[in-house]
Structure formats: C-alpha cells, structure tokens
C-alpha cells in the first residue's frame, strides 16, 4: 500500500517522493474525465467543500471549482479580504465557524505564510493549501511536475530552472521541494535581489545569466514578476528586467535543443516571457492549466472520505 497523504495538503516540503508519486499517478486517470461528454463522476457526492480565498485569484479558484464539480462535491466560494491589520474576523474565528458548519474540506488561499497550516491545526476538516503567502502552492507544484513528467516521461535526472522572483514565490518553493524529491536537478535564475539570501542552502544551482540557464536546462519554469516588486525597489525597471532576464525567442534559438517552457500564469508578456515564446512550439503553458484540474481532482480524491471507523465497519460488511 502506498503511503497515504494524511489529513491535509499543506506543502510539498513535508511530502515524501512516494506521496508525490501517488498524487501524480492518481491524476493520470482523472485527465480522461475532463475529456468525457459528461465531465462528472459521483465520487465526492455529498461532500461539502469551501473555497476560502483571502486573496484574489481567478485561475486557481476556477481550477479547484472545476475539480470539485467534476467530482460531484458541493462547493461554496468565500472571498475575503485579508489586510494584515484588518479588524474583521480573525482567521481562528473563521476556522471555528467553518467547523461549526460541518464542512468536509477547505481549500484556502491566504496572503500570510503558514495560514493553511494554522487552519489545519484548528479544524478537523481536510485542508488544502491553494497558496499561502510566500510559502508554498503545492497543487501548482504538482501540476508542474505532472506536465514535466508527461513530456519527459520521467522526472528523475531532468534539469529544471526556475526563473525570476524566487524570493517572493510560493510556486518556486513548491517546485524546488517537489522536483528535488522526485530526483530532478533544480536551478534558479534571477537577479540576486529576488533570490533568498539562503538560496545556496536549498540545494539548487544558481545562474546569474538567463543565457547560462537556458544553456543548462531541459525546461524553464518562468515565474510571474509581480509588478509591485519594482515599486519595492528590488529591480530598477521592467524594461531592464526584460533585457537582462526575459526569456526571448532569440535567447532560446541560441541553443540547439528544445527547451520546454512552463509558466504558472498569469503572464506578463514582454516582461519575463516574450509572446512568441509563450505561444511557441515548446510552450506547455496550456497543458499546465489542463493538468491543474486533474491534479486537484486527484488531491481532493486522495484526501476525501476514508474515515477509519467506517473502514472497519465496511470490512465487517463483507467483500464485494
């Protein structure tokens, strides 16, 4: 029996390689469901799921919603603002209220690192982290892994370079942990002011030049450059960023190999990625989106149900 996932999915750092493999393998058959005429299976019928989004997000929320609906779960969206000094309801009160409504699962997106874990420790429902601050975004990491595995037929030994604002990126963290656990070789490339000071302790190769990263990598995962980083003084201008770190057709053409292009979206075309790269033949950006639904269905399925006391009762009820 493969190791189960436990109650929650909070990050990839705390998962084993076997657990990540289980999720990816489970996602495979779920891809087919989205291709059916009736894109719905009754698996989570009767389960109640709350999508608790403290940060605006269209892509991730919609992807989770589709995953939930295709599994026949009943889901409710809650959008809340979370200015750190907001005098509204605290997260702990929100947690208690959700618990009192007897929900089965919570998908949480929050601006504070650790918010998903905070919630998970306080409620019995399953908690899925849909992005917490600059900590982790595990389902994005998983869909990136799935997309890479689809293309390379393996993860072990492939070279993936994560490009851009690693310092503030939860996608970068989930990718680094997930890729390393699956045996991939991880590089990062970006201005040093947007890399964590302790990046060298994370077991990755650091590239100062995007040209060197492209030369080295089998795949590039290009992070979105948050435009507020410029106001924060981390980089002088978007123009210079594109000139120095932008992934352009010209730079890709210099290497005589195919380099797979991933981007978690939404893209700033002409900043971190040029349009002809995003829309080019080696871009798997839309595959990522498709895989996102399958991966999230797999996670929902693996975390759902399975109350141990019911399993005992089922055993006594005879075999099928």
């Amino acid at each position, binding site marked *: *029996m*493969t190791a*189960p996932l436990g109650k929650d999915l909070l990050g990839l750092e705390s998962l084993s390689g076997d657990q990540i493999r289980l999720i990816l*393998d*489970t996602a*495979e*058959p*779920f891809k*087919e*469901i989205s291709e*059916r*005429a*009736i894109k*719905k*299976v*009754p*698996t989570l019928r*009767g389960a109640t799921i709350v999508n608790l989004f403290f940060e605006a997000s269209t892509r991730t929320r919609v992807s989770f919603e589709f995953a939930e609906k295709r*599994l026949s779960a009943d889901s409710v969206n809650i959008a809340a603002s979370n200015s750190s000094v907001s005098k509204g309801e605290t997260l702990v009160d929100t947690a208690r209220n959700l618990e009192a409504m007897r929900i089965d699962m919570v998908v949480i997106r929050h601006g504070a690192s650790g918010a998903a874990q905070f919630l998970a420790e306080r409620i019995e429902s399953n908690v899925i982290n849909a992005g917490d601050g600059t900590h982790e975004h595990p389902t994005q990491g998983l869909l990136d892994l799935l997309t890479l595995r689809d293309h390379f037929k393996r993860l072990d030994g492939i070279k993936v370079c994560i490009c851009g604002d690693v310092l503030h990126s939860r996608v970068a963290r989930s990718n680094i942990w997930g890729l390393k656990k699956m045996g991939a070789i991880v590089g990062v490339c970006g201005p040093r002011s947007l890399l964590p000071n302790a990046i060298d302790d994370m077991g990755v190769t650091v590239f100062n030049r995007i040209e060197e990263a492209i030369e080295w990598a089998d795949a590039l995962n290009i992070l979105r450059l948050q435009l507020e980083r410029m106001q924060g003084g981390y980089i002088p201008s978007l123009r210079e960023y594109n000139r120095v770190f932008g992934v352009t057709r010209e730079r890709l053409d210099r290497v005589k190999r195919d380099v797979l292009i991933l981007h978690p979206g939404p893209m700033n075309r002409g900043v971190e990625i040029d349009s002809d790269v995003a829309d080019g033949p080696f871009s798997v950006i839309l595959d990522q989106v498709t895989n996102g639904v399958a991966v999230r269905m797999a996670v929902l*399925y*693996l975390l*759902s*149900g*399975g*109350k*141990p006391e*019911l*399993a005992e*009762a*089922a055993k006594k009820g*005879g*075999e*099928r």
Partner: protein
Amino acid sequence: MPTRTSTLLDARAMARTIRRMADEIVELNEGTDDLVIVGIQRRGVPLAQRLVAAIGEREKGHVHQGALDITLYRDDLQTVGPRPVVGSTDLPVDIDGKVVVVVDDVLYTGRTVRAALDELADFGRPRRIALAVLIDRGGRELPIHADVVGKTVTVESGQRVDVMVEELDGKDAVILARKGEEE
C-alpha cells in the same frame, strides 16, 4: 471441511470457456456489428481482450474494445479506508447506439456492475448493455444478472473465488480458496 483449495478451471479449460463465451456474445448480438467489448478494471480487461481476439478469429470484422475503471463510481467510497487506486478508463468509440458488453471476472454482489452501468451512462446511451462474466458465484445484493456466463459455481461461506490471468498473475486459472488464505 472443504479442501483447502481446488481448481475450478485450469488454463485449458479457461481458454475453452472463453471461446464459448465469445460465440455466445456473437449470437446474442447476431453478429459483430456495433459490438463494443468493455472490460472492468482490472481482470475484466484482459478477459475482454481475449474475448475480442476469440471473436476476431471466427468472424471477419473488427470489434471495438474498451476498459472501464469503476472506482470513482463505487458506492462504498465514503466507508473504505485509504483511497483505492484508480485505473484508467478508455472507451475508443462513441457508445451511442452500440451494443456494449461489459466483461468482468467474477459476478458476486452486483455492486461493481451497478457502478459500471452508471459510468457507461455518463459516456452515452448504448442500444443495449449486456454482461459477460467468467464466473457467477451467486450472492447478489442487487437485481443484476449476467447474459453470458463462463461457469456458475456454488461457494460455501468461508470460501472465495480467485480468477488469475496470465497478464497480471502469471498464469490462467480459477481457484476456489478458503477465505483469508493466500493462494
């Protein structure tokens, strides 16, 4: 006391049985037109494959073959422990208006077949759905019967039927074993 294990069908008997089942399926369909043979994961899939091969040997023309994983349609998902592994579902043709023969190794409670019927309904509306099983061991909990049966066996309480196929188990055989005993 029943004997510890006994062989109900050996490899040769199993091959014979499958050939007979193939004939019955063709008869039931009055030919191979519009026929789709769909195996239920996991042992129904290799059995379906053999049925398709056997039909192909006798009749000219191509018979479509598919695979169905019913895990996500199980009625006990909220009660079982760790999530069961989900296999692949693959229906190569549109099943609207077709005759779909669902193939499984053992027919027992009927719950697996119920799930398969529900799942097929999400893919389309076949003209007819039939059920072919290698072994019918009785013990139905739902009003379901098989149209084509390889062998009907009576199973005492404390016994179970194991179907083994070359592709998954290394040999072909159907065995009657005591419950809780490894084959």
